[in-house]
């Protein structure tokens, strides 16, 4: 078989495979693939959903911004998570890293992802405050 014939056969085979995939719904020719920016935003949303304010930091009034960095592994989880800019609090740095590690189904992204995680305490008067006997203010 000549080289041209082999290429033609391969092309026909590829087209046939593609058509079958479209029929089977495996390939959506209408939907465009999410852009890198969109996937980056998805990563941020997943990390946001997994983030928890550390109880000890809430008790002690610790606030700050931790900047973390990681990459997305093939299973859609954060790998090689590290803090690249500390919040000044190990509690918050660890909580930010934990948020990335707990995030699931991260979309694939090539390269490193860097996210600032801001921990902020709302200044609200809670209902039924009483001065605690320990000298502090406690919430009922």
């Amino acid at each position, binding site marked *: 078989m000549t080289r041209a014939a082999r290429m033609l056969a391969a092309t026909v085979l590829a087209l046939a495979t593609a058509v079958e995939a479209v029929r089977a719904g495996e390939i959506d020719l209408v939907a465009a693939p999410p852009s890198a920016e969109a996937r980056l935003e998805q990563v941020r949303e997943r990390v946001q959903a997994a983030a928890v304010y550390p109880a000890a930091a809430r008790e002690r009034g610790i606030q700050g911004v931790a900047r973390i960095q990681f990459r997305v592994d093939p299973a859609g989880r954060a790998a090689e998570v590290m803090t690249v800019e500390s919040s000044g609090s190990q509690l918050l740095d660890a909580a930010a890293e934990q948020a990335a590690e707990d995030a699931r189904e991260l979309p694939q992204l090539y390269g490193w992802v860097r996210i600032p995680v801001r921990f902020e305490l709302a200044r609200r*008067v809670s209902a039924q405050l009483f001065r605690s006997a320990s000298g502090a203010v406690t919430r009922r």
Partner: protein
Amino acid sequence: MIPAPVAQPARKVCARASGLPSRSAFLLLALAAPLPAFAADPQPPAPARLVREAGEVSVVATRAERNLLDVPANVTVIDRAAVARSGAENVPELLRKEAGVFTTNTTTNPEGYSVEARGFQNGGGNGCRTLVLVDGRRVNEADTGCPDWTFISLDDVDRIEVVRGPGSAVYGDNAIGGVIHIFTRRGEGTRATLAASVGEYDSEAGEASAATSFGALRLRAATTYQDTAGFRQRSDFNAKRVRGGVDLDLGERGVIGLTGGYATTERSRPSALFAPYGTRDGERGGRDLSAGIERERFAQGELNLALPGEIALLATPFYRRSRSESDSLFGFAGPFPFPFHTEDEQDSSGIDFQLSHDFDLAFPLRVIIGGEARKDDYEVATDFGANEAERRVLGAFVHAEVTLADDWLLSAGVRYDDSDLDGVLSAPLAECAGLRCDFDDAEWSPRAGVTWRFADAGSLYFAFGEGFRFPNLNEAFGAYGFAPALKPETSRSYELGAKWAGEAWRASVAFYQARVRDEIFFNPLAANPLNPFFPGINDNVDHVRHRGVELNASHEINSWLALSASFTLDDATVRDDAVGAFVGERLPITPKSRGALGAQLTLPLGFDASIDALFVGERRIANDVTGNAARLQRYVTFGARVGWRHEIAAGLALVIEAVGRNLSNEHYAEWGGLSTFTNEVGFFPAPERSFAGGVRLEIER
């Protein structure tokens, strides 16, 4: 030395292995590119330079309640569940098992309870060094300096915070040994309780309470009834209490509330027995007759508001009035019966407030400033005359808490109190202008503490604090030998402690030492210049050293068994006094050692049970300042409780409980004293074995 890993060069993708031509492979890849699921593809290592900056993740929360591990003091919290399972009849009985706190009863009826911390328990004869607050309102009375525990119903209690050590830097007067803060039941929704109990000594008690909400308005009301003939003859006690309140929830702007109550208690007081304790003479009432009635009414406001500038305001204006009458007949069966009638009236009013703000500086900083303005009026009339006094107290404090690092917390503060005491006496006194006395006192009370959280569940702390109490109005202007020139009592305390609060284990240990200056003490050996018939007078002892160790531990062994233990060593010894007669002597009533053990069982079918043991060591009797009189012997008592809780329907529960007290029928005297009249030793035997049972219906929606 382990060589650093060398980055492998990226391998060229070889498509030939598939048997397909390389261009076909590229075509297939091109066609497959839109496939969203390429997760199975191996990803090459991310290059260091390709970093994608994502938007900010924002985690917002409200500042949480302060963790007790962070507080540089020995603090325990008794919550509602523990109260319900305790089997205790009242708050002082609930506090018996607490390390560092010593509860005793000077009459064996509910009127006689005295609760003190850190070796200050001398039997209730000289004021109180433990401040008791109910929802932020001081309930230590102006005349005795002590709370009247009969006015506080255990049914109203939601939780109790017990803080050992000086708290005058925030709370001022009386907070030398500790602060006990009682929080009453609140909450949203609708709930109601109906309860009744009966016990030996013709005891019966009842409670009805209800709370509900109408939008932002929350209403609550409770009434309790208690009646008992008491263990001794002539120890009848009857109490009726009613309490109600309304809160207006302003949402994020805060809460405004008003609480009020009225209570009347009638008490008969059995007098001391002169027979040796241990004999079964508890049915006797002693040589003296004494009975009284006391009424209390109070109102307190609660303002908790968010002010502009993110400042939280907490203010508690209050008013309290009490009236009491008492008739005694000393030696009624003897040849010379001696009647004695007393009436007193007290009015206290004032406001306690604080403003707090969180500063977002390099370190999180919370600053609280506050103050107190209080006026106490006191009139007492006896067969010998009438005294009256008025005290005005102004206090101001600043308190700051800073988180120095994740694991280091510092708190410090100081308070200034000024007392202006005016009174009119029934007899002239050298320090006063004729019958009129005017004394001004002022005290500074600093406090500082540092906490190191060495683990998530553990902390170490060191604290320094000063406390004080002004002479109470009984000591200064009372019927039993007034001494208005008494100086305030002050303490300087150092404390080192460790706490652990893990999943199954909770434990704490605290070592404290306090140098107490001018400890106010009834000196039975001193002559009373005003009353030759009543020897002894309140006096300032120059220096008393209080030191000790407090241990608390509990362990949840499994889902159905938990154990708890507490142990206290207290040593209160006179180090210096002007006369020198007491140097080296231990102060009476507080034992050197005491402790408690408990086991709590959660059983199937809604049953639960508990058993506990209480040990109190030997101690001197009241007024025995030289240690020559007979001692109060050590005792061990056992108690048990079995409860059954059944959910009749959703939100409707039936609780039945049975309680046994002093199960080993230990015969012991809880309190005793040396008579200043006759120099005889008298004892108050504690109740023998007894049982009680109760039923409770709880509705909660």
